[in-house]
């Protein structure tokens, strides 16, 4: 039986007069990779930022495992098992790789000291090294190296390994293969399959339709703040999806005309 992990109902979000998200509803099941597609400005990043608590939604409901939840902060989302890798890189360049990997969830000694607790530096470094080895997306990276000295692709790998580390229920990737070389791109796609096989759910945003057909189970297409199509990968093909995204598809055009 398919187990529902995340369900969105009528999510709405405006920035002043810009209605970035008019109404979005969909369901993400356990062990499923859903690709979220759409042209620039369609509202994809806005949707996932709402789910990951970057900003509050205006209206709508979010359910995690059937339970209605309110996500008011990024911490709320993380505690619910939702890890997000944002498009606008989510690392602090002046910190080391190890410190970035554990940012917000630092291993500490003397926990009762709260924010003044000393970092467990040995554990931090060891866990970071182990993680980098496990991901294997990139060659040898020193856990003590500053993120500012890394390439864009290497940074992306670090962000992805971090989501992996915390074994979230839902992993959201906003254009993770942007700026990546061939090898790194394959690493990311392999990672997506791996976490799916481990039972996690993945919401993948990308402009590369080929990647979608390599890893996704289902496709959701957004246009101008709305979800305009939802299909299983097995039931569709590349050209159809492409035409839905651009809006050139006749049936979509008709539907739009009728709506007006």
């Amino acid at each position, binding site marked *: 039986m398919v187990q529902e992990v995340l369900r969105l109902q009528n999510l709405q979000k405006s920035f002043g007069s810009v209605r970035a998200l008019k109404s979005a509803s969909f369901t993400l099941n356990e062990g499923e990779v859903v690709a979220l597609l759409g042209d620039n400005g369609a509202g994809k990043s806005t949707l996932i930022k709402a789910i990951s608590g970057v900003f509050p939604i205006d209206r709508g409901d979010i359910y995690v495992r059937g339970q209605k939840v309110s996500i008011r902060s990024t911490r709320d989302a*993380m505690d619910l098992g939702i890890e997000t890798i944002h498009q606008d890189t989510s690392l602090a360049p002046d910190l080391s790789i190890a410190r970035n990997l554990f940012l917000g969830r630092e291993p500490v000694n003397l926990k009762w000291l709260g924010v003044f607790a000393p970092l467990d530096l040995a554990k931090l470094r060891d866990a970071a090294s182990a993680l980098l080895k496990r991901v294997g997306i990139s060659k040898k990276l020193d856990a003590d190296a500053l993120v500012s000295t890394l390439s864009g692709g290497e940074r992306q790998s670090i962000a992805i390994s971090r989501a992996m580390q915390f074994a979230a229920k839902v992993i959201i990737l906003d254009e993770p293969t942007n700026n990546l070389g061939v090898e790194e791109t394959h690493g990311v796609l392999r990672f997506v399959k791996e976490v799916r096989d481990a039972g996690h759910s993945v919401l993948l945003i990308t402009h590369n339709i080929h990647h979608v057909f390599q890893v996704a189970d289902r496709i959701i297409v957004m246009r101008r703040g709305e979800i305009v199509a939802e299909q299983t990968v097995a039931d569709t093909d590349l050209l159809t999806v492409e035409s839905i995204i651009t809006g050139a598809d006749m049936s979509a055009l008709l539907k739009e005309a009728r709506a007006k």
Partner: protein
Amino acid sequence: MPVGKRRSSLIRSPQFSSLVILIVLLAVFAIADANFLSPLNISNMMAFLPELGIIALGMTLLLTAGEFDLSVGAVFGLAPVVVMLLVQNGGVDIGVALLAGLLLCIAIGAINGLIVTKIGISSFLVTLSMLLVVRGAALYITQGFPLKSWDQPGFFVTLLAGSFNIGSFRFYTSLWWFVGLSLLAVYVLRYAKLGNWISAIGSNRNAAVARGVPADAVKIWLFILTSVLAGLAGMISAFRISAASPVAGTGYELEVIAMVVVGGTALTGGRGTILGTIVGALMLRAIRNGIVLIGVPGLAYNIFVGVIILAMLILHALLQKNAARS
């Protein structure tokens, strides 16, 4: 990291180059004037050092988080004025008066922090306005005159500005405050969870927030801390010279920021070093003291201080470029 690599990164670090320059400067002054290293002169330098140094510690943390505070000099002036007025004219117990001063500093810092984070106005503008408000308040409540001199020794005076002799050196207890607070600041910035957050916030605020770091709360507390340290430094200074003046601390904000950036902390946030700040504080103190001794005319001091600060900043920028390339 292999030892060799760690050593070379230490040598290339900004606080290390600042330290080298400090040593060179000390040597130059010592050779130019034998009195520079005399017990009396060293004691003098050490008396002034903690007052600006303590503020610089708070400023370093604040700058590392990507904000700064121009109102510290004014708070340095207002806090002792309020405390001493309460005691001298209001008949309030000194302990209670100090508590009131502390609350005042907390309030000033909290207002700075809340406006910067919640309304989103740059800290430059907010704290510049606060500087005027605070300095204006100090001038108004004193009608512009220094208070009558402080003649009540006691526990708090000894605690903040007592002095003791080691051989022919005379030290003030404020030096212990500076040493203790420095150690605390080094610990927090380098080894505590909070330090990781502070650097991350200054380096990429969105990234930190996305990881659940309470960026606004951290910044507000750092504004409060900086204000409280400025007030503490003001009290130390006032007790040491047994007087409070509404214009005390004028221009200190820039001197403190200079100490911090000369030490290698980035004005743009993300990279802060307490050790660098201590070196920076020592350096500015030594420069101000040294150029008097070697006979630079009084009105020319600031030319020298400015040129040396510029030279330091250029050096840091060049080192930074080099490090990025290698």
